């Protein structure tokens, strides 16, 4: 069974690649792919006011099937983009979780193939509360074709200000566990299709279990190649 890289057309700023069995190509050309049958889940998400989550996860699901083999990672990365947080504000007496929007800026330096250190600065803003996190920790990377998967565990501080009454602020520990996938756009740039994080904070003497989703662009410097393999992508 042979493998062939088939261009599937433009994906945002670049293009994606899908692995297909060459023996199946005629079949693929003959019939359409069945659509992803996640309508029930999407409806539940929309019902709960989670359109942003639905959109980002849908985009990521479209992307995850478009990868092939590669053997290098960037030496350094700088991510910047949009970030959405579902903040666990009932722990503060709110009626419902808060939807916060903001930014995520994250520099990373990879010490070896598949391993690096990362810092993350995020700011999330809502009508009643703001949260800013500064965290640092290890990240683990796994390249597959034009996709670069990563996972990280970050630790630091979270600072929150709540506009209730005269206003209340607090600073507390934050733990961020999550990961995501970057897609090559060019040798220098990648598109972070999705980054999903569980963010645990202990603001105002209570524990919040939050979910954060980020997307944006990654700028990259240099590459680290896996020993014994030739690069499949041109390096800057």
């Amino acid at each position, binding site marked *: 069974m042979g493998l062939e890289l088939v261009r599937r057309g433009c994906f945002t700023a670049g293009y994606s690649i899908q692995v297909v069995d060459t023996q199946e190509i005629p079949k693929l050309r003959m019939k359409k792919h069945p659509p992803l049958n996640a309508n029930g889940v999407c409806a539940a998400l929309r019902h709960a*006011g989670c359109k942003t989550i639905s959109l980002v996860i849908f985009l990521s*699901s479209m992307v995850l099937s478009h990868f092939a083999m590669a053997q290098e990672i960037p030496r350094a990365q700088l991510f910047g983009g949009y970030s959405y947080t579902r903040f666990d504000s*009932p722990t503060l*007496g709110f009626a419902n979780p808060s939807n916060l929007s903001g930014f995520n800026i994250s520099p990373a330096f990879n010490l070896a193939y598949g391993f690096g250190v990362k810092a993350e600065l995020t700011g999330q803003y809502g009508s009643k509360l703001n949260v800013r996190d500064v965290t640092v920790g290890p990240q683990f990377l796994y390249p597959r074709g034009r996709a670069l998967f990563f996972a990280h565990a970050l630790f630091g501080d979270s600072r929150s200000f709540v506009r*209730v009454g005269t206003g209340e602020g607090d600073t507390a520990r934050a733990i961020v566990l999550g990961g995501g996938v970057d897609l090559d756009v060019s040798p220098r740039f990648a598109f972070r299709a999705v980054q999903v994080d569980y963010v645990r904070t202990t603001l105002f003497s209570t524990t919040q279990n939050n*979910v954060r989703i980020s997307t944006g662009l990654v700028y990259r410097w240099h590459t680290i190649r896996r020993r014994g393999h030739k690069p499949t992508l041109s390096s800057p």
Partner: protein
Amino acid sequence: MKRAALICVLVLLAGLAGCSSSSKHLAYVTSPTSNSISAFRVSNHSGKFTPVIGSPFPAGSSPTSIVLDPADKFAYAANQTGNDISLFKIDNSTGGISEIRPRTPAGIGPAALAMDSGGAFLFAANVSSSDISIYSINAGTGALTEVAGSRFALPSGASPAALTVSPSGKYLYVASSTLGLVFGYSIGSGGALQEVQSPVAVGSGPFSLAIDPGEHFVYVANSLSDTISVLSLDASTGTLTALPNSPFTAGNNPISLAIDSAGKFLYVANLGGNNVSAFALDSSTGVPTELTTPKSPFAAGTRPVFITIDSTGKFVYVANENSRDISAFTIDSTTGGLTNGGIAASLGSGPSWIATTK
């Protein structure tokens, strides 16, 4: 396989994101000695209190009593040493309250508030000036306007300590803690009061009134005589008549009353006994019978001064002045018995009153 895994991830994320809406309401607790009002988000399911961020909120001088409008948009607090009424806007999303100034003047020593079920009028019992302040309520802004005839004078030295509006909104009853009397008034369309009869004698030191939902009986906690008076209420005239065997024996210093929404059970906070007595109410005669199974009374905190049943009808909350906390009890809807749920909330200073949203 891959598709199934993806759907699982999506469902997991939806759960993590906490997309479901909450089923909670709010509770507000006055603390006169700290001039503040504490706010809590209360679980409809467990009755658990979660402090609202920013709580306690600054209030007037000695906020003693608090009531909420029927739409749960506004809260009114009687400032006993400030001699005025504070208006607060409730933010239902955060639970926070913010005072809308200026405060509305009252008589001297407003100690208790009552509002009709339609939210048209607010009544304040001024214990030191022995009169009743009457306000009409602007449903849109919550603003109070004193009506013609306010302040409505009571006999000298009456020291009204408690008042309540009948469920129909037609009658107001006021307890004189010093004279041991209950006054009955009809409420006019403009809020003016008209006495329906001569005051009715009850026990010594009446400090709390409660009316059953059917508007058939008025219950009076006689704090100094350790009894409960039961008065039959003529819904057409508003007149009161003491039951033949009234008053009935109660606990040690009964100070506050609450009747469940079905009118089946009466709960009494006993100031001296540090407990709560539970009574089954005879729907036809109004006679209260203290529960024996489970055995009443039920232990509360130190110096309970106020008792209320929350909007779900499942929980009883007791404000304990000396232990500076709120005791929570679960109601057995069949027997009326209480299960002690422990301390729902600890406060920095003694609570005096609790109001809950729907």
